[in-house]
């Protein structure tokens, strides 16, 4: 193999599995260390730089970082990254005076954001401090998008939403509530310098089966959740069937329990391992005695004398059809009684308010064509982000889209090339303090993952808005922070210093280092001290070593960043260096000062 090029910022970034997996590249290990030091406000601000909504995300983030976390490869459970984020948010001191502010002088550019969801709010967050005049159009009477209208209050209290959303609006956005944009054409006529569409994917999918329109007790999940959130609905029948196996289904079943549902079942077509809902959402629903029935394919709504009385399902078995696709085979049929059915089978984008003759392109599914780097549509000056861009995802993706769209809009408004963007960078600094002393807690802590304490089952159903998760206790936090392996403290190797004494190889507790003769990757992976079987994780390969010409190889997969290799190295050929990923935001993009009219 060729010597590894560690000057490419991606190399060390990838070692920080959580940060690499986070769509917004939140600097997880650094914020965990800050929490460990009791610097919660600093941890909050560091989070806010990349993910904008630490208090919200610390509760409801989809947490793609956690399945990626290295700790989950060493043992079973990853670091409770998301729970720790909430600790930072809950315990942070007042940070209002540390928030970015709009400059005294505007920059003369005016932009419109459609929707007050997390995507639009991120654009506002990034562009208000640069002097933009920002107008937000929101169809509903409240901000927050699905975060407020769909994510139930027992998971995400409105006060948390208010704090973090107001932090942005208060920078000086002009918020127009109850103001749906009904025509893109007429918005264009208002002369904005750029427009951002953050209108989400507001359509819940329907299920066209016999009986669908013979009753009013069949509800579309996301519309029903919105009615609950805005208190238009405050009850449901005792027996409820939820159709679908995703996170929306979990919110619907748990909300039903709080509105009078006694026997609530989630009916999923697929087997457990193929359900879209996150593991923790499934577990939380099951803790509340929701029954999750698998392999039930809905066939018919059973109506008796104009009243919904049940639903008929085919019980199925899944087989590989030979081409890797699963095919269902019906075993038998079953009718389950119910008072209400909630359909939670997905969402779609819908843009009835965008005219088709104004230069925007729509693809075969009637979804606008959006560039994956610039987030610009086919019509210059109109940008998309969040669920409206590439279909429903989650909050953290919407935030990242917002950051990227903000960079593009900033460049667009200053007539600069949007593809010519600042690259990611990485700074490295040694953590060596003195002999045997490193500036991070490098000793491996074998503690197991802490479990989130919940409000008791007797208490939590008494009101709709009792937050179920209580947050980590002090002791839990103290233990959990030490589980983080500090993956950003990189093992950096200087080939010319190595005397091939094997000290690092012998001391490595996870056998990830080897000195051997070079070879092709497949061959090399098999010849290491512990075979490198995780192909998603890179091998670091040094240049030829001074004494024998062999190479130092490190399998990045299991390194626990304990620093023992560096401690044991007599020549300091290994050093533990903190890598700091430099993420460019709109405010980092150099744009020429805008010419302003005198007077």
């Amino acid at each position, binding site marked *: 193999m060729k010597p590894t090029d560690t000057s490419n910022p991606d190399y060390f970034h990838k070692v920080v599995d959580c940060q690499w997996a986070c769509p917004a590249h939140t600097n997880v290990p650094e914020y965990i260390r800050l929490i460990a030091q009791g610097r919660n406000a600093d941890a909050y601000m560091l989070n806010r730089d990349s993910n904008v909504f630490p208090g919200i995300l610390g509760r409801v983030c989809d947490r793609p970082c956690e399945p990626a976390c290295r700790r989950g*490869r*060493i*043992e079973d459970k990853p670091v409770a990254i998301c729970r720790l984020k909430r600790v930072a948010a809950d315990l942070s001191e007042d940070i209002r005076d540390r928030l970015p502010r709009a400059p005294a002088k505007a920059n003369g550019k005016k932009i419109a954001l459609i929707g007050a969801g997390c995507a639009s709010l991120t654009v506002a967050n990034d562009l208000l401090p640069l002097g933009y005049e920002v107008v937000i159009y929101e169809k509903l009477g409240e901000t927050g998008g699905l975060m407020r209208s769909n994510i139930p209050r027992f998971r995400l209290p409105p006060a948390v939403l208010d704090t973090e959303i107001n932090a942005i609006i208060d920078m000086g956005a002009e918020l127009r509530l109850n103001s749906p944009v009904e025509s893109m054409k007429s918005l264009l006529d208002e002369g904005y310098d750029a427009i951002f569409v953050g209108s989400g994917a507001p359509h819940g999918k329907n299920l066209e089966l016999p009986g669908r329109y013979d009753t009013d007790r069949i509800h579309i999940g996301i519309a029903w959740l919105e009615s609950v959130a805005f208190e238009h609905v405050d009850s449901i029948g005792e027996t409820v069937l939820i159709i679908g196996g995703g996170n929306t289904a979990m919110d619907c079943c748990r909300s039903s329990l709080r509105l009078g549902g006694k026997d609530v079942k989630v009916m999923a077509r697929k087997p457990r391992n193929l359900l879209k809902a996150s593991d923790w959402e499934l577990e939380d629903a099951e803790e509340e005695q929701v029954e999750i029935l698998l392999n039930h394919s809905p066939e018919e709504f059973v109506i008796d004398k104009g009243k919904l009385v049940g639903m008929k399902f085919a019980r199925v078995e899944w087989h590989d059809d030979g081409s890797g696709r699963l095919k269902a085979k019906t075993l038998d049929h079953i009718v389950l009684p119910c008072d209400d059915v909630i359909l939670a089978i997905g969402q779609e984008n819908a843009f009835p308010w965008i005219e088709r003759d104004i230069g925007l392109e729509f693809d075969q599914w009637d979804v606008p064509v959006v560039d994956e780097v610039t987030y610009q549509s086919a019509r210059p000056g109109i940008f998309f982000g969040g669920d409206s861009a590439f279909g429903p995802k989650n909050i953290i993706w919407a935030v990242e889209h917002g950051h990227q769209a903000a960079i593009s809009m900033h460049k667009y408004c200053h007539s600069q090339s949007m593809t010519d963007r600042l690259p990611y960078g990485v700074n490295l600094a040694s953590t060596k303090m003195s002999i*045997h002393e490193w500036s991070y807690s*490098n*000793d*491996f802590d*074998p503690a197991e993952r802490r479990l989130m304490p919940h409000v008791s089952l007797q208490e939590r159903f008494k009101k709709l808005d009792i937050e179920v998760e209580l947050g980590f206790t002090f002791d839990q936090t103290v233990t959990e922070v030490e589980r983080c392996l500090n993956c950003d403290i990189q093992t950096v190797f200087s080939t010319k210093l190595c*005397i*091939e*004494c*094997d*000290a690092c*190889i*012998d*001391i490595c*507790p*996870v*056998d990830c280092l080897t000195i051997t003769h070079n070879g092709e990757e497949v061959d090399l992976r098999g010849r290491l001290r*512990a075979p490198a*079987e995780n192909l998603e994780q890179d091998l670091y390969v040094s240049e030829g070593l001074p*004494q*024998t010409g062999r190479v130092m190889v490190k399998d990045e997969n*299991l390194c*626990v960043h*304990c620093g*023992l290799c560096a*401690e*044991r*190295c*007599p*020549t300091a050929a290994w050093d533990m260096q903190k890598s700091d990923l430099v993420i460019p935001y709109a405010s980092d993009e150099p744009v020429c000062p805008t010419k302003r009219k005198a007077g």
Partner: protein
Amino acid sequence: MSFIRKPNIAYKGQRTNALGLSMRDYEGGMSTLCAGCGHDSITSALVQAFFELDIEPHRVAKLSGIGCSSKTPAYFLSTAHGINTVHGRMPAVATGANAAARDLYYIGVSGDGDSLSIGLGQFAHAMRRNLHMLYLIENNGVYGLTKGQFSASADLGTKAKKGEVNEQPPIDPVKAALAFGGSFVARAFSGDKDQLLPLLKAGLKHKGFAMIDVLSPCVTFNDHEDSTKSYAHTRQFYHPAVHTDFIPPAEAITINYAEGDVVTVELHDGSKLVLCKVQPSYDPHDRAAALSYLEKSEAKGEIVTGLLYIDENRSTMHAVNNSAVKPLREIPYEDLNPGAAKLVELQSRYR
């Protein structure tokens, strides 16, 4: 040394042996040697050898004298038996222990100072007796523990860290072992585990005294430029004469030795050593030839390594003394101690 213990991480996919133990179960306490010391590398090779041979740690007795090298038994097999004896006196204690409990694996770890200076006499007699043990000399040419004075293995002309020149000829433990009757004589290098590991396994399975002189650089006092025991010097003049593969009993020889110059030696437990001669004329059964080969190579400055001599048929101490087949602890007390009357009877024979 490091200040944090190597943490015990049972990571997924970790290897286990036939006893269900991981390599970590063969480790010992945290090493207090200097970072980069060759001795630590040998320790790690020992851990691997015991692990791969599926030896139960409590079936092992570790013995040593005094020196940095002699400290190392504390760093492997923490659940084995062990004793850290007086300087240079480990062979005597090993002899006694072996006489009493002959069913254990004996491993002695010594240094060039411990074995070739103060302990030369004891070292010689253990070989003469063909004591059944593996004996390692972790050879760095200096007294590491007492801050780097030349030892008896320091080469003529080699320089100490502060520049003084050694003017006395060295004692080569390999030549000494050949002369004193060692039945398994090898040299290896802490920086080449591919060679060291099979030699350790072979030495543990050899019946009789297995002496391995392991060159083991002292990074602190003897790894400088004009030293002949540094990592760089050893690598430059490193000259493997015989490559050894260790094949456990019941396992077939699968490696294809093309060179032709291959000798297979079967050990008493059925395991096999495949000796592949890098130096075609070399015969590891011929003691005289081995000695003369070593003399010639030494003149050229070559550091000859490998299994240089083996004799599986020499009688061990127990055979010569016709001692009991069972370890003493398994012999009933009445048989071990037949009583005062028997003693008087025995003594009367010598009156």
